């Protein structure tokens, strides 16, 4: 047992959850304004690819991350335009976005780098690893918490910031109101459409960061469809966390831990299928206890009335 639950397992958990957590936070904001964003997967994939492209052409990690955020932002605008302006079914747009992202990134991989499958270049620099001054000297905790990329720490800070933003600021309350009951919010003079756009754009930024962590933080390469379902896991984490930043963080932690654990178990040639299955079963069980709230019904309404 000691061999399985060692320090590096927890450290890798922290690295694993960051993309999921960032994307799930984006999904949570979207869910709060009544848009159920199935396109997280695609947005993260675009972020991951454009981070590599930015890195390749500028050679600067910071600019690469900015470029990733910019590209994800563009696609989230597309998502917003289709679903808010044109009132297309949110879920359909999300599915289409995922396909577009998968096709475009693989296509651009050929067009830009002229390779197939994966792009790797040993000259590329990944995100820097930050050692936290005092923390890193604490025996066990230091090994777990220190020495990660800045985005890992940023994601943790963002959880707290978003929690404060949503529940302690006026704009946050307006955002919640816009999702809870758009008609009532509109009657109070809240610009619902603008708030929805704002939420979608924020989601784009977060997904861009998630992608950058995926392709520049965890590894320094891009492979076709490298999100491999992480966007959907993020979506599930959003549901399990009830679109509440702290809850989303907790559920992402669960998913990340299971992810890291199953990779570890693979090393011992043990069946990983059930450990990987566990988060989904937990989510279904959790849905039994947490009943749908207003914004969820909104999402449900939008997916039922479309037929």
């Amino acid at each position, binding site marked *: 047992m000691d061999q399985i639950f060692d320090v590096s397992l927890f450290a890798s958990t922290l690295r694993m959850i960051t993309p999921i957590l960032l994307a799930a936070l984006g999904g949570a904001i979207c869910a709060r304004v009544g848009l159920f964003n199935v396109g997280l997967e695609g947005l993260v994939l675009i972020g991951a690819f454009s981070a590599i492209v930015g890195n390749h052409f500028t050679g600067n990690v910071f600019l690469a991350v900015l470029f990733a955020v910019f590209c994800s932002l563009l696609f989230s605008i597309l998502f917003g335009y289709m679903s808010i302006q044109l009132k*297309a079914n949110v879920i359909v747009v999300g599915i289409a976005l995922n396909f577009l992202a998968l096709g475009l990134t693989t296509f651009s991989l050929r067009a830009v780098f002229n390779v197939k499958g994966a792009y790797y270049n040993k000259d590329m620099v990944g995100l820097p690893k930050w050692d936290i001054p005092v923390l890193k000297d604490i025996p066990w905790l230091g090994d777990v918490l220190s020495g990660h990329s800045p985005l890992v720490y940023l994601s943790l800070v963002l959880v707290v910031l978003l929690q404060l933003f949503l529940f302690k600021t006026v704009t946050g309350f307006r955002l919640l109101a816009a999702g809870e009951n758009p008609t009532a919010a509109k009657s109070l003079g809240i610009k619902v459409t603008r708030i929805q756009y704002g939420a979608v754009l924020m989601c784009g930024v977060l997904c861009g960061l998630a992608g950058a962590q995926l392709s520049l933080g965890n590894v320094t390469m891009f492979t076709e469809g490298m999100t491999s379902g992480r966007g959907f896991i993020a979506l599930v984490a959003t549901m399990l966390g009830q679109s509440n930043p702290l809850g989303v963080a907790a559920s992402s932690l669960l998913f990340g831990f299971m992810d890291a654990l199953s990779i570890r178990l693979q090393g011992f040639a043990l069946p990983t299928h059930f450990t990987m299955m566990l988060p989904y079963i937990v989510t279904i069980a959790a849905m039994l206890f947490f009943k749908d709230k207003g914004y969820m019904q909104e999402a449900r309404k939008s997916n039922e009335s479309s*037929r």
Partner: protein
Amino acid sequence: MDKLLQFGRSMLQPLLAILVGLAAGAIAIVIVGGSVMDTYAEMWKGAFGSFYFFTNTLSRATPIILIGLGVALAFRAGFFNMGSEGQMVLGALSAALTAIYLPGPGWFKLVAAIMAGIISGGIWSAFAGWLDAKYKMNLLITTLLLNYIATLFAGYIVSYPLKDRSGSAAMAQTVMIDKSVWLPKLFHGMSVHGGFIIAAVSAVLLFFFMKFTVKGYEIRMLGGNPLFASYGGVQRGKMMLLSMFVSGGFAGLAGSVEVLGTQYRYIDSALTSPGYAWSGIMATLLAGSHPLGTAVAAILLAALQTGGMGMERNTDVPLEVSSIIQAVLILFVSAKLSYSFLKRKKARS
């Protein structure tokens, strides 16, 4: 004449979307420096160029049609069934296991395997419906979650207890199904198999079921206006279980015919990686949940995919052009919903 006009109008939007999709593809082709006409010609050849390629397209379309039909039925009833992937995988697994381990003559095993596929896919799907009807759990999310559980479970079964240990290949797969249980090929040496006939017949049957039976009318009513349906005495919970069972049954059937007609064993991720389930959902969206239209759209999507492969063989343009075309297609078709929304708004004011 009126009907013809209406039909033409309903065809206009998908055709427009196809044109826009092809235009987007053309831009992508120009970017990588290919010739648009030549590339599309290669694509056409890859999908329909010879009898062999044509049957190849049809065999790829087979599972997509069946999944599309299932999703279309659920859509018509107003349910978003995103769980086709898991339902298909479970159907495929049970079909393979039935075909391998059930004693009896070949034809009996074949029928039993197909039935097992339909039933297990249906039950898995109805389970999600039951969770929604009984506990008000969002169907969209539960079906999505059940996908993972089903694929992981099937993956476990074929990597550990029932793994094929006879061959030297260390792949996660079951043993080969006996030849007597294989779905017959329609033409010698071609890949299209009896499953295509099943798919085509199912499309026609579903069309008549939706159009001319009481149950079909109830399903359409439930999807069109749930309040009116409940006023008319349609029980939502019961209909949900029924339509989800049939919907999942189609997905299970898709998995079974793929196993019995093409792969002859259950191979881990051989059904999930080509994205049959998502293609099926796309076909349904493209056709606006019309059963016959779904079949046509499925063949179109399959043609785009096989055509893309042909294109990649003969030109420098990468395969992914076809997935770009598909995605743009769907984006534009989803804009159709807004078009009808605008009409409704006008009618109200």
